[in-house]
């Protein structure tokens, strides 16, 4: 069973490469480079998984995370971030672990760039499958 994945990432090259890989893996992939668009796409469609960057034009990734948390039927989320620090949140004070801990309140996994593609694919598969199982239960 294939899953539906949305990639929200401002780096077009990365989007292209990831979409390529994921489509070849058999997933249905949507891509957007803008935070606002991403949010409206989530509101209008049902996704199994979200690959989300934080530093986005239009709307910050964290805002998207927070808006999703309120939804009842929500996708699994993997945050893919380039920064270890949390300038936007904690008065410019960087806290590596807290940053990740904090993000994990909203997301299922946090992956730092540059990442090992194979490991990410394992994670994606795991999360998509889990989502399907959950849906099947209901």
């Amino acid at each position: 069973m294939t899953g539906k994945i949305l990639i929200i990432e401002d780096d077009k090259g990365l989007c292209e490469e990831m979409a390529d890989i994921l489509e070849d893996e058999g997933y249905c992939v949507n891509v957007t480079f803008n935070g606002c668009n991403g949010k409206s796409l989530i509101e209008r469609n049902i996704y199994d998984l979200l690959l989300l960057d934080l530093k986005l034009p239009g709307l910050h990734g964290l805002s998207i995370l927070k808006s999703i948390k309120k939804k009842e039927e929500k996708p699994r989320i993997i945050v893919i971030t380039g920064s270890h620090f949390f300038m936007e949140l904690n008065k410019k004070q960087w806290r590596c672990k807290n940053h990740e801990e904090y993000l994990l309140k909203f997301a299922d996994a946090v992956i730092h760039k540059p990442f090992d593609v194979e490991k990410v694919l394992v994670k994606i598969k795991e999360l998509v499958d889990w989502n399907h199982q959950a849906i099947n239960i209901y």
Partner: protein
Amino acid sequence: MESERIKTGGLDRFGKKAEKVLGQKFTGIKKRSVNDYQKLINELEGYQVELRMQNEDLRNAHEELLKSQKRYFDIYDFASIGCLIIDQNGKILETNLTGAWMLGMERDCLMKSSFSRFVAGENRDMFYLHCKRIFETSLKHSCDLKLVKKDGTTFFAQLESIAFKDIEGRCRQFRTAFIDITENKNVEDKLKEKTHDLIRKNKELNCLYNISAIVEKSGISLEEIIQKIVNIIPSYWQYPEIACSRIVLDGREWRTIDFRETIWKQASDIIIHGNVSGVLEVFYTEEKPEREEGPFLREERNLINIISERFGRIIEQKRNEKALQDSEAKFKALSENSPNMIFIQKNGNIVYVNKKCKEIIGYKSEDFYSSDFDFFSLYTPEFRDTIKINFERLINGDEIPQCLYTIITTKAGKRIKTILSAKKITYEGDKAILGIVTDITKLKEAEKVLKRDKATFERFVREKTEELIRAQKKLQNAKRLSDIGTLAATVAHELRNPLAVIQTASYNIRRKNRNPLLDKHLDNIKKCISESNQIINNLLFYSRIKNPKHEKINIYDILDECIVLQEERFHKENLLIHKDISSLKDIYIEADCLQMKELFINILNNSYDALTENAGDNISRDTGGNGGGNLISNGGRIDILALCNGSDFIKMYFKDNGPGISNGDLNKVFEPFFSKKSKGTGLGLTVCSQIVCLHEGKIEIDSEKGKGTTITVRLPIERGKDDRENSYN
């Protein structure tokens, strides 16, 4: 005898009378004998002689009488008092010359005129009463009357009168003697005036005396004094029962209880130190007859002025007293609390010593003040004479040195080095010497210590200066680093994105072209990405000065994980990792997990770099080989040894057999951006040092050129416990 008879016709008259008497007699005795007649004649002749003699006597007496009369008349006429005989109708019957002269009239004109016309109108009733009393009592009476002379001038006269009976035995006249008492009267008036003056003066004095009594009463405040003075003032005015008073001084008021302001007011300014500072007022609460100043007397004006003047002086005095007291108290406090010994010496005796004096020298006040106490004996003999001479010179008004160095022996026999400074003063009216003695023992000691420690101090200063310079350098570095940190953080994020793309892209290449020939290149890309990422991590880590998040972590697991992670790289370069870390098993330390990983990875990276950097010298390259594991090491290895010291700390040794570091560079390796390598940021060991420091541990590096390097890391098991340096070696 005949002639005498003629002369005195009176006697003739007496003769005829006699003859007449005789004739009658003779007729009775006619019948007498001749003898009888002869006898008779003889008798008669005897009588005649007798008579003649008697007559002579009488005549003499008469003349004497006349003379006397004339004399008394003169006395009467020229007596110093005026004499009058006045009848019951007040008419003058007789007067002497003095009387007429006193009344200013001729004696003759005065006769029969009424005495009342000479009595001043206002005294006529009195004169009438006087007359009445004289006739009623027939005793002597006197009265003072004002009389008017004919020419209109007046004088005071004192009359003394007594009634007398006339020939018929009836009291119809009286004699009066009067004298001019004008002068007496004037004197009396003056006396009265003087008496009045005296009474007034007495009153003033009384008032001032009472004021003084109030002022001199001890233990009474100035406010109370003023109130008491205000209270007594009304009693010295003419109408004390309706008088009230008030004193206004420097804006404050004191009043009598019944005080009420009215229009009947007498006031006087109070002058203190030449300035009008207030006013003293007296009011009458009811209207009283007009006197010199409204209802007030001239004397009262005088009195109020005197009181206000005196009052001003009292206030001046009291204020001066207060100022003096304050000043005295101040100086006493100053003297008693002085750290110096202070004494006053008068005529060789001590009259004052302060607390410090007693404290240091050890004698009691009464010892000092007793007349046989010799203050000079306190100075050690070598100084005694100098001080005596100087004191004498001082008393004579000569200059002496400002400070005299001397040694004082205390009661307990202790010798104190002191500086004595003496001044000539006036104490209770006499010349005296005020001495101030400063104990310089401590000063001297301090001086000694100072001299001895000068070298130490200099060294200390030098060290501190160096430390300061180092700190300054550090600070400059920190500033530079914080700028670099911001830059690094920005660059890192921007670099990671392309790295992620490269990594993903190379994955796609590998996936889409299953060509083993490309694998080698793609592996290189992968390795470079990993290295780049580590550089970014170090840069980022270094730029963040942060406190570790302490947790109980299993240090063995973390170290092992890091070694395993690096093993692959080491093996590819044919480097040997030998670990002996089993003693850390089940040891939990308080540390930040991520920082520990960072620490170990950096140390291992550093060793890896050291072992591979100069590979060209030591490592032969097999170009014909396949894939990664084609480099053959000549025995490059890293030994990792971990030890645990009970419950205090752990120690880890990372020993490589690389080229080593020269001595000159050894102490720079922990400095940021110091690198001898062709690549890298020079931050790896700096980050390590920071992490260890933050964990209250210690990192050391030992190296010998050509033999290898050992990095030793010591970490406490519990925070704040490891303060025993080098106890484990």
